[in-house]
């Protein structure tokens, strides 16, 4: 009951610093690979503009409100000679004031918000369309104009506005590359869209993204990359995928053999496009050797990682369908030996 200790003003300052500093520091950290506040496209910059405006308004409100709070707490602390304070019950003018002012601030926030909503609404006419289909846990990427299918790594030309048509094959996913565009969910039965125009300076750069709607066991392992290519590089890349892969030789030829005999071809296509039967349930491996990453863009594509992946995919990506369904992992007669894996790795690396 007794007022044993008075609070020290110093501790209040420490308190304030603890709260404010992390928030202000937020403006300083833009160097992370997946940061949301280093926009590299028109759409991302538009969003960032709205965010920055709201952020600074919030900072002002924060300083005013917390300042008033800290001042009141400090100024009106009970002192030994404090008498009974005046029993103020309220003040209508103040109530009206602090109803109207926040309302006006919110209108100021709402207007740019609405403008941005409608500006980033539909894919602009004439955009380069790419279809993306979400799977547990990888991205299928289709270029309808050239009939090409690839996975997890999306190459886009730097001179076009890019529009994505997004669908999911199984559960909800969310498609997001923060530097280029805000996220949009992939919902069963719907086709959602998102678009962006890369900045000129982004040519030759790579951008990180990943699935951000919880989609089951390996949700954390559903990542992706977008490469902004110069128009020429992009054309060369599509042409490369359309031309048949070189005939494998040596160990790679054994690998090619195994690729069929172990049942890999049941799910994986290597001929660039969908075949007549339609979708393959697993990533299309055309041009796999030239990809930077593997297994849902979670690790670098090199012989060591690929060997580890083929050796025990469940450990790298828990719950993945290859380990669950593929004959090579289910059927002991078809199990992969170390030599098999070596041959397969050699073969897959030839798929340029």
């Amino acid at each position: 009951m007794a007022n044993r200790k008075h609070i020290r003003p110093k501790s209040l300052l420490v308190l304030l610093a603890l709260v404010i500093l992390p928030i202000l520091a937020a403006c300083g950290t833009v160097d992370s690979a997946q940061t949301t506040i280093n926009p590299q496209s028109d759409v991302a910059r538009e969003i960032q503009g709205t965010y920055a405006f709201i952020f600074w308004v919030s900072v002002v409100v924060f300083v005013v409100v917390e300042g008033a709070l800290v001042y009141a707490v400090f100024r009106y602390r009970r002192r030994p000679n404090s008498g009974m304070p005046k029993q103020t019950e309220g003040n209508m003018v103040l109530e009206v004031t602090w109803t109207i002012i926040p309302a006006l601030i919110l209108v100021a926030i709402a207007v740019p918000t609405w403008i941005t909503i409608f500006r980033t609404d539909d894919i602009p006419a004439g955009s380069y369309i790419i279809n993306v289909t979400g799977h547990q846990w990888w991205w299928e990427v289709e270029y309808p104009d050239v009939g090409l299918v690839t996975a997890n790594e999306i190459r886009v030309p730097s001179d076009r506005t890019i529009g994505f048509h997004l669908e999911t094959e199984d559960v909800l996913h969310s498609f997001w590359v923060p530097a280029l565009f805000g996220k949009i969910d992939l919902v069963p039965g719907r086709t959602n869209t998102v678009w962006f125009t890369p900045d000129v300076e982004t040519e030759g750069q790579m951008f990180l993204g990943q699935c951000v709607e919880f989609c089951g066991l390996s949700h954390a392992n559903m990542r992706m990359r977008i490469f902004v290519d110069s128009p020429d590089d992009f054309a060369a890349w599509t042409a490369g995928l359309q031309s048949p892969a070189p005939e494998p030789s040596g160990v790679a030829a054994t690998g090619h053999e195994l690729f069929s005999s172990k049942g890999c071809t049941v799910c994986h296509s290597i001929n660039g496009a969908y075949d007549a039967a339609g979708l393959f349930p697993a990533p299309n491996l055309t041009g796999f050797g030239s990809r930077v990453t593997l297994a849902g863009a979670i690790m670098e594509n090199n012989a060591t990682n690929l060997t580890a992946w083929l050796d025990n995919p469940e450990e790298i990506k828990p719950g993945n369908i290859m380990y669950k369904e593929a004959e090579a992992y289910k059927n002991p007669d078809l199990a992969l030996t170390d030599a098999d894996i070596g041959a397969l790795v050699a073969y897959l690396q030839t798929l340029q």
Partner: protein
Amino acid sequence: MATAVGAFGGADHAASKSGVWSWITTVDHKRIGILYGVTAVTFFLIGGFEALLIRLQLAEAESTLIAAGLFNQLFTMHALTMIFLAIMPLGAAFFNFIVPLQIGARDVAFPRLNALSYWLFLFGALLLNSSFIFGGAPDVGWFAYANLTALEYSPSSAVDFFALGMLVLGVSSLAAALNFIITILNLRAPGMTLMRMPVFTWMTLVVSFLLVFALPILTVGLVQLLFWREFGMPFFSAEAGADPLLWQHIFWLFGHPEVYILILPAMGIVSEILPTYSRKPLFGYSTVVFAGVAIGFMGFAVWAHHMFTVGLGSIALAAFSASTMLIAVPTGIKIFNWIATLWGGSIQFTTAMLFALGFVALFVIGGLSGVMHASPPVDTQQQDTYFVVAHLHYVLFGGSIMGLFGGIYYWFPKMTGRLLSEGWGKLHFWLMFIGMNVTFGPMHLVGIDGMPRRINTYDESMGWELLNQIETVGAFIIALSVAVFLVNFFKSVKSGEPAGDDPWDGRTLEWSISSPPPEYNFARIPVVHSNEPFWDQKHPELKHDAPPVIAGGADGEAEESIHMPNPSYWPIVVGFGTALAAGLVIVNPWLASIGAVIGLLGIYGWVFEPAGPEHH
């Protein structure tokens, strides 16, 4: 008429005042409140333990400490536990203990229904948590979005545990909410008009209305989810023409009011604490009340802001962003009035007051980050990242938990007759305040840096590791603060300083009676003339028109006879039967009839049990 009196008073109950059986059969709102409180704190510890495991896993990039499957169970159960088994029941503990005292009532309107609410809560909570033993806890997020919950993608019974546990908890909350609305509307002391009710009572009323109107919506969704999984009715199967988004709409139609269900009790508590330790009335009482009511109302019109990234279309985005931003107005009004309450006051820094001030300071941060993702374009960069995790923890931890701890320090003397130690309490507060900011502050940064929620692993090259390590340290500081609280609690229960009836120079009716209150609360029902009746009684000189002294309180001669309801074991029977039936549905729907029979027998016994003393 069954009002024949005889010697029936407290004496008949003497035999049943102690022992486990007395707790099992109790229908006393104060004991039920304590049951709620102890259970809620226990689940708070469990939920906190789950949080620590999550934080340990994330402290290191590419950590393999906890497998992905377990991690998903942990974050799902952490949310469910904290929301439904800790914060909500802790609120219910105060509703139970304090509201009847604040309105000058002897009990709630339906004491046995009140006991049933508690037992359903307890058994529902046990059912939900038993999933850890029986084949895996829910691992689909607390929102359980379709169609990840489809049998095809979640073949284990984890989702069934979620749906059935939530159904049982929902019935519990609905019964409690109905009970509290009737209690508050119908059992107020003479003279206590609606606009003379303490703000905590007001917020209880608003929360109860939110539950009454939001829970049936969730019930429909859970029933659809169960029918979908158990009987193959294609409620959320896109291939059958259904829309999985319906689940999201239904869930958030419940889920957003639920957010206010979690925060409004804390706002009510803070509105009690700030005036008491400032020795001033709450500034703008009626505005604060109306703001609370407005927040409740508007809570039903903003649900789709949880769905800004599902492809709602521009018009819906614009509409829901507007309604969401609008809610900031009444929220702001509350904060300004709290600060104005402090202004010109004589502020005493008790532990309860520190928690209330911490609430205001931290809630402002959670509110402001909330305004940021009220803007749909901004939300497309923040949704499902750690920025939102930071936001919701500033609201639910900095807000609800801080407010509820404030309530514990404030009302503990009333509940037990002893004070919690202020020294330990202040240590608890500062550790928790610092730990909370160290844990959740950096989450803003790592969220802005693009770290998604609900991932069990991230690449070292992402640059998130340092901030995550800091967060984990913060989580352990919070854990330490909770340990301090427990020490304080157990020490003070046993040997705390005697509190006296009115340790804080309180303003509302609960301080006018003894600590702990007698079973019948008020020997005489007081007559109320203002919204701070006890304060006005103590300080008649402060009012221009000195109000009449309130009659009643524990002093004075008791009314001739006070009848209290008899203890009853039927509530626990009905509660057990219901939860058992729900649990057995998972094994085999036919087996559920065993639980149903127990429940029905319980209802039969309940209906034909004489509730009060009947002397013919």
